[in-house]
């Protein structure tokens, strides 16, 4: 794991208020990795969990270093391109025909995708 050195921050400089939170987050545990893998339906071996725990910790740590240069007056960015309000007019355009749509279905009944019944998870 990367040591907690922050070359971009000079000592005495004000720290980002999010900083403490991110440091806690960077402390990725094997249990968190197991949980995330479960949510993402990814079957991981114990060896993979161990290596991912280390790697994810390093990634989070690297990302956290960004906050050492971001001061409190820098707004949180949701997108790298400074554009807003990119819209489409409410006008109907071409659609796929059903046969085209169903080429993406592993199984279908001629008009609808056929999927396994998923019990107990009706949204």
């Amino acid at each position, binding site marked *: 794991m990367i040591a907690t050195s922050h070359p971009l921050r000079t000592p005495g400089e004000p720290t980002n208020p999010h900083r403490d939170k991110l440091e806690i987050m960077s402390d990725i545990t094997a249990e968190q990795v197991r*949980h*995330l893998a*479960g*949510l*993402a*339906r990814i079957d991981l071996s114990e060896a993979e969990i161990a290596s991912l725990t280390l790697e994810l910790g390093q990634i989070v740590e690297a990302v956290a270093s960004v906050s050492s240069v971001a001061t409190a007056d820098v707004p949180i960015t*949701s*997108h790298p*391109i400074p*554009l*807003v*309000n*990119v*819209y*489409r*007019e*409410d*006008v*109907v*355009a*071409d*659609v*796929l*025909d*059903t046969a085209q*749509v*169903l080429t*993406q279905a592993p199984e279908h*009944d001629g*008009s*609808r*995708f*056929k*999927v*396994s*019944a*998923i*019990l*107990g*998870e*009706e*949204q």
Partner: protein
Amino acid sequence: MAKAKLMDFDKALELFEPVLGFEVHVELSTKTKMFSAAPNNFGSEPNTNITPTCLGLPGALPVVNEQAVRYSISLGLALGCDIAPSSTFARKNYFYPDLAKNYQISQFDQPIAINGNVEVELADGRLFQIDIERAHMEEDAGKLTHVGGSAGRIQGAEYSLVDFNRAGVPLVEIVTRIIYGAEADAPELAKAYVSTIRDMVVALGISDAKMERGNLRCDANVSLSPRGSGTLGTRTETKNVNSLRSVERAVRYEIQRQAAILAGGGTITQETRHWHEDTGATSAGRPKSDADDYRYFPEPDLLPVVPAPELIEELRAALPEKPAERRRRLKADWNFSDLEFQDVVNSGLLNEITETVAQGASPQTARKWWTGEIARLANIADAEPTSLVTPAQVAELQLLIDDGTLTDRLARQVLEGVIAGEGSPREVVDARGLAVVSDDGALIAAIDEALKSQPDVLEKIREGKLQAAGAVIGAVMKAMQGKADAARVRELVLERAAAL
């Protein structure tokens, strides 16, 4: 499904305070979907309103529908919310085949509208304030049909069929703050709240708001707080509530069910429950669990929505009257008694009656048709009154009475013809030959014949015993097959009795 034990409602209220919360989803009636130019149509053949974006195919990118944003802002304003100067979309990640891309595009930490308030009126006129936490934009999911098992329910299903036509339809989800103090009115308040939202979106013209089609869906959160405890109970979230009546029944049911469990020393499981219209009960769905950890993150394919202040003000200026204000105005304009107006509001036919009046019928006649004969026929047919006739047809029918073409009795026959799909009221009158016989010649001939065949009655009328005329009027109406104006027949009977 085992029957749950229920506590008497009044008893439950003695022991517990019901605490409510609602999430109402409104499908917007835009021409296209939220993020793609596929048509937003109900009832199309399965998987015909699909673009690559609807399926999340590689390379497909979402683009925001401007009209959906305008509608969402209007709704936010009508809910008394502040419109966020900047709002963003987020991915809500979950695994369920109703969306092909394994996430729903929604809004998370920056919804378009926050901090609103809605005034809700109960049947007896009392007003209740419901605080709105947020209203956010998102996309609807596809429709699953469960095959196998019983009655198409998910329990016991062998497989499911997915139609993605609804996937991507624009939705606004309206989330209330926790609602305290509803007490015994809780079930009615639930119904009144959803009804208020329905009226609001109809008045705004932003949704078809047909609950039976899922245009408007309510998830009702209910928990019980033991009296004097000052603590909140564990809540359940009831879904699949597809009518105003069901919203009321589902909340009442959950109060009674939870009270029975708590009073018996049990605990409430925090879970999703499904309302079953047929049995009038809820059943356990999915427990709240890991699956609710949606790992939201900002949607990288979409940019922030930053509405211009001028746009917000333009939409604010165009807002229709608030439903409660509108009701007060209509009641005064129509000069209805409290009882008459309450009858209208409870029937849920206020919009239809308003439209019928706009089409030329008087308020009282519009009210009588909708809450009387049409409601009666709808009840017999087990259908919604609005599915039988249109306000324009009702107004046309009433105008045919007003101009003397029809009597009330004939008009009811015409209504049946209209409902049977025989055409407009005028067409039914012509096709069935139901118009009043206004030709005095034909009436006089029938009257003369009736008088001559009942000389004793004729004698009585001449002696001034006018009530005897009833027998002649009856005979004439029968001869005319009911297609005569009884008042006119009476006039003519008296004239002829004197003349013969």
